[in-house]
Structures are given as structure tokens and as C-alpha cells.
């Protein structure tokens, strides 16, 4: 896996097929000075990791066509991407167990608040600064 980009803007990956949710999350991440990339399903997310793209944080929806969020999370962790912070996001509270079992770091119910995103990014940023 290529070395992480330390000391620069956090790189976020949004895995979400619902366009409205994706638009809002991307806007929030740009507002928080993230370099954000969006894909529409779990398989596209896994493909990015297979291409050795690196991210500091991943926000994944649950139910998506082709590959679900938890399935993608499990594959990403199996590939050895253990340091990337993965956040499961869903309007379904029952999704928490599926995400955590797959290897997500935390579950956040929709709608995601800007303040919540900011708190998570602060953890990522401080980790980047410590390892820099």
C-alpha cells in the first residue's frame, strides 16, 4: 500500500448510492477541507483500494447495489487496510452490528451532522500529525 499523505488535507472516500446523501456528505467534507472522492457502491470502493489508492477515512452507506457497505468494509480490512478509519453510515439503526462485525471503527446514524464529521476528522488529523 502506498504511504499515506501526511500533514496535508485528509483524504476521504464516500461510498453511497443515494445521490442526495452523497451530495450533502461531499459538501460537508469539502467545507471541512477534505479531499473527498465519491463512489456509488461497495465494489467501486474495493476497486479503489485494489488500485492502491489511499484514504484516511471512509464513510460507507449500508445497502447498495452490487456490493453492500459491510461487505466492502470486510474486504477492505482483509486486504490489509487496517489503519484507514471506516465509518458506517445508515438510517437503519440495525446496520450498526453489521458494520462493526465487518470491521468498521464506528457507526453513525443518518443524517450525519457536520459537528460529528468534524470530530471524526480531528481524530484522523491528529493521528496523521503524530505519525508525521
Amino acid at each position, binding site marked *: 500500500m502506498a504511504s499515506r499523505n501526511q500533514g496535508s488535507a485528509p483524504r476521504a472516500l464516500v461510498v453511497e448510492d*443515494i*445521490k*442526495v*446523501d452523497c*451530495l*450533502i456528505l461531499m*459538501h*460537508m467534507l*469539502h*467545507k471541512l477541507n477534505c479531499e473527498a472522492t465519491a463512489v456509488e457502491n461497495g465494489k467501486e470502493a474495493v476497486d479503489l483500494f485494489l488500485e492502491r489508492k489511499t484514504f484516511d477515512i471512509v464513510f460507507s452507506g449500508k*445497502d447498495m447495489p452490487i456490493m453492500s457497505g459491510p461487505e466492502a468494509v470486510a474486504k477492505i480490512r482483509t486486504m490489509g487496510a487496517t489503519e484507514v478509519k471506516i465509518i458506517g453510515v*445508515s*438510517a*437503519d439503526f440495525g446496520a450498526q452490528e453489521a458494520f462493526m462485525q465487518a470491521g468498521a471503527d464506528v457507526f453513525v446514524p*443518518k*443524517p450525519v*451532522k*457536520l459537528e460529528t464529521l468534524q470530530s471524526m476528522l480531528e481524530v484522523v488529523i491528529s493521528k496523521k500529525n503524530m505519525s508525521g
Partner: protein
Amino acid sequence: MAAAALREQLNALLSSMFASGLVDDQFQQLQMLQEDGGTPGFVAEVVTLFCDDADRIISELAALLEQPIVDFDKVDAYVHQLKGSSASVGAQKVKFTCMQFRQLCQDKNRDGCIMALAVVRNEFYDLRNKFQTMLQLEQQIQAQQ
């Protein structure tokens, strides 16, 4: 009409939307994201996308519920999607009606689902009308500036 009067109309509309529970603080968060980020048109883009999506989902639900054998898993998946996007834009009433709808899906209650769809549709149409008026007023205010 002068910009000030239009602004007053817009504020009154927004106040009534919040007061009636049509939208909640998530919608306010979207407005703040637009203002703080200096991104005019963000709310319009979100609202338009939501309405297009919701319209499509409601049509799909109607078609599914017309089938002789209803696939409640598919119905539930669509309602879940609509509930999620409603929550994301702050469409509180639509969100609540979706929660009720989901319960009826899980009960595999066809007649209940048909009634729930009617409720969701009505709440959505009401919201969409208000959003359309909101966007028209914003455009008129912009045109005056």
C-alpha cells in the same frame, strides 16, 4: 415586487415549514452549510435532487403494490431509501410517514402499505410545493439584486 417584500414572504414560508413540522433542524443545517460555505445554489441542488428521487421512488412503490403478489422486501428497500434521503434533507413529515410505512412492510400488510403510500405521497407533494415556492422566491430575490 420589491426584494424586501419577497424576502419577507420567503421568511414567512420557511417559518411555517418549520412550525408545521414539514422540515426539521437538518434542513436548517443545509441552509447554514450554504451560507457558511458561500455556495449559493447548494440548497436548491439538494432539494431538487431529493424531489426527483422521491418522485421516482413513489412511482416504483405504486407499481410494486399493484402487483398480484407484492414483494415486500423490495417495497421496504425503497421506503428505507426514501426515509434516509428525507432524513438527510430534513423532510421530517415525509420521514415519519416512511417509518410507519416500513412497519407495515414488515407486517406484510398490503392494504396498510397502499394507505401508507397515499400518506407519503400527500406529504411529499405538500413539501415539494413548498420547496418549489421557496426556490421561486429565492430566484426572484436574486433577480432583484
